[in-house]
């Protein structure tokens, strides 16, 4: 292995490692920020104390997750320069302004209003506090929009020319931002964030209900999470299918790898349920297939053909094994989420949503798997892009920094040690926070029955439930 290859490999491992950690936190905080805005709004609208309890409870969890997202995100923003300087020089004129807009329109908004959302209810009053909560949620969505525009452009580049010095020169920003795969990726990612959060909220609520049966606040959050799941999971499956069709159009080699489709099949493409891809010999071992179903899903016809991997030079093929399996993990989990949502719906109809121990246990078990699905989906799409950083135009092997190997090795070790320690501790704190049920709302004077009965309350009653 030459030094050149090793530097690339180390830079790739480092990027994959840091971005895998990073993607987990936004996936959670995008969904949770919207959830908090809904809870805060519901509290202001209904004055139902359960919403305020939930807001104060998930707010603290959000703060920890958001903190981890911020610090891991700062690493990402600098890593383009430290480890991928050739990419930065060449693609910077296109990618850079979009990321600058992410900072200007999203990060400042989140950071500016986060303090008010966490600390400021008493200082600014309910209305402005609601505005701050909304701004934080809005900021997370704007952030997702820009970063997915960047990411999508790297998959389906559009709206540029290439200068003599090798730089990509923006020609049409409309085409760059709204590049062909952007809408599909954005929808798929935001829905994934909402699903992930619904699973975590549902899992934590189910755990609390197993330990404290009938807890009114946990019942509320379980109910909300289950509604979210049953509504979003089918939409996500549909959106994923549309995204797949878009990928087939623009990155056929990725689809072929996802399907394990080495050779074209006479009469129609099967759907491979299980197989061991053997990229060296360009074949699938131990394949368990359903005939024609691949054609049906991807081309909506019985005998439709899709490009096979054999049509691409082997040096232009993505690593098949990884893409093939990560895709299957993501899809299987997606259907599991749908199943849980439908189970919840049925249990709700039968009236045992809050007490069916098996449903609650299944919710707990699936609680963290949204993250697994997000990671699997991310691996599918990003590994499927290889061997390119800008698809078809700039190779990964031509993108990394001219760095000495010891520098990359040391920094990689540093990141691995620090991330496992810091984010391990954070995960531990999050789990411990979620294990404990939210406070049961005390009936305050404002909404309680005491006042309506015209009886003076006893001494030292809290004015209301504002405990933050």
């Amino acid at each position, binding site marked *: 292995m030459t030094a050149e290859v090793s530097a690339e490999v180390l830079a790739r491992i480092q990027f994959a490692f840091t971005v895998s950690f990073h993607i987990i936190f936004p996936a959670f905080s995008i969904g949770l920020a919207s959830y908090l805005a809904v809870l805060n709004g519901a509290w202001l609208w209904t004055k139902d104390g359960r919403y305020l309890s939930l807001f104060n409870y998930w707010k603290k969890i959000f703060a920890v997750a958001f903190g981890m997202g911020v*610090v891991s995100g700062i690493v990402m923003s600098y890593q383009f*320069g430290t480890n991928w300087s050739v990419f930065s*020089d060449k693609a*910077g004129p296109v990618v850079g302004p979009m990321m600058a807009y992410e*900072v200007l329109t999203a990060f400042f908004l989140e950071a500016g209003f986060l303090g008010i959302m966490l600390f400021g209810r008493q200082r600014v009053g309910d209305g402005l506090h609601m505005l701050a909560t909304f701004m934080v949620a809005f900021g997370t969505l704007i952030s997702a929009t820009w970063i997915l525009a960047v990411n999508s452009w790297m998959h389906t580049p559009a709206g540029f020319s290439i200068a003599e010095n090798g730089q990509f020169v923006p020609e049409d920003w409309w085409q760059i931002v709204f590049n062909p795969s952007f809408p599909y990726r954005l929808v798929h990612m935001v829905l994934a964030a909402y699903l992930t959060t619904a699973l975590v909220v549902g899992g934590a609520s189910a755990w609390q209900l197993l330990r404290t049966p009938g807890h009114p606040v946990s019942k509320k959050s379980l109910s909300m999470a289950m509604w979210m799941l049953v509504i979003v999971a089918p939409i996500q499956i549909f959106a994923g299918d549309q995204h797949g069709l878009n990928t087939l159009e623009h990155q056929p080699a990725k689809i072929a790898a996802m399907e394990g489709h080495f050779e074209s099949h006479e009469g129609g493409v099967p759907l491979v349920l299980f197989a061991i891809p053997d990229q060296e010999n360009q074949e699938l071992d131990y394949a368990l297939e359903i005939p024609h179903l691949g054609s049906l899903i991807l081309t909506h016809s019985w005998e439709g053909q899709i490009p096979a991997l054999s049509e691409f030079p082997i040096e232009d093929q993505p690593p098949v094994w990884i893409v093939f399996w990560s895709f299957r993990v993501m899809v299987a989990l997606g259907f599991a989420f749908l199943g849980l949502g439908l189970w919840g719906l049925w249990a709700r109809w039968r009236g045992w949503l809050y007490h069916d121990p098996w449903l609650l246990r299944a919710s707990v078990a699936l609680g963290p798997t949204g993250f697994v699905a997000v990671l699997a989906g991310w691996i599918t799409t990003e590994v499927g892009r290889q061997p390119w950083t800008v698809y078809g135009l700039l190779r990964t092997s031509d993108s990394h920094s001219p760095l000495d190997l010891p520098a990359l090795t040391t920094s990689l070790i540093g990141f691995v040690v620090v991330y496992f320690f810091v984010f391990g501790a954070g995960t531990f704190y999050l789990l411990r926070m979620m294990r404990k049920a939210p406070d049961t709302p005390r009936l305050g004077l404002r909404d309680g029955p005491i006042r309506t009965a015209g009886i003076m309350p006893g001494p030292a009653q809290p004015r209301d439930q504002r405990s933050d």
Partner: protein
Amino acid sequence: MFGLELSFIWAGIIAFAVLVYVILDGFDLGVGILFPLAKTEQDRDVMMNSVAPIWDGNETWLVLGGGGLFAVFPLAYAVVMPALYVPIILMLLALIFRGVAFEYRWRTKRWKRLWDFAFFGGSLVAAFSQGMALGGLVQGIEVVNRGYAGGWWDWLSPFSLLTGLAVTTGYALLGATWLVMKLEGDIHDKMRRIAQPLGLATLVFLGLVSIFTPLQDEVYFQRWFSGGSLAFVVVVPVLVLLCAAGLWKGLRGGGDHLPFFSALGFFVLGFIGIGISFYPMIVPPSLTIVEAAAPDSSLGFALVGTVILIPIILAYTAYAYWVFRGKIDPSEGYH
């Protein structure tokens, strides 16, 4: 011609973002550096709560500085980041520890001291790394064929160690004067006492860096000691002395706000000094602002939004500071 102007406008905006970062995150890193000086649990709580609602916004200017450089001077970004690899990575790792400490230290009893230490250590290492990165940039970066051409320890020199110490000391001064402004009682008095030697040390470091900077590069020397810039050579030190007088007066009982703003003056003036040295380079001695600039289509697109958004950001940032104005109430906090 228009393109030329765009790149200079952008150089000004990036410089502004970095300056705002230095003066905003400077004081909250300084609070972290001073953390071990607090002897009681409550003192540490109020020190941290004095910056907890705003530190995240402050640090975002660092992302804007880096992201802005990437957007409009991608070649400079691609050269500087590998050249300053070690201090940048050290800074990032340090900021991780420091950033999570804000939440973690409230989530554990047994490990609270660990996260206290992470807050202090992270702030210290981040400040020192930023100072060393500055020194590494000032002493020059070698560029061949659109890429960094040196080794991964080239940035390390007596000069970069000096700038590392200078920035760390300066941040500590900012932190101390911020706490003078935001706290009350014993810890307030203690910070007032500590700010005096810190102010003196910052002044000494400012002098040392000013003496050694022109010796790093022939161009700097010419710039500072010939022709038109001579006016600045006289004006900047006079203004520094004015700030020093303000700091002294404030710390001797002339109000709780004066020391902080005098200390900020040191940083603004030091920053202007570096700007005078650099211009029109962006990566001395190899790359000029024009050479490193992205195509006009990038500069223009990014500029439209930036010009509109920066005033809005400054407005709501100011509002957030306004919401949390005044002395810290020890009983407040959401944890």
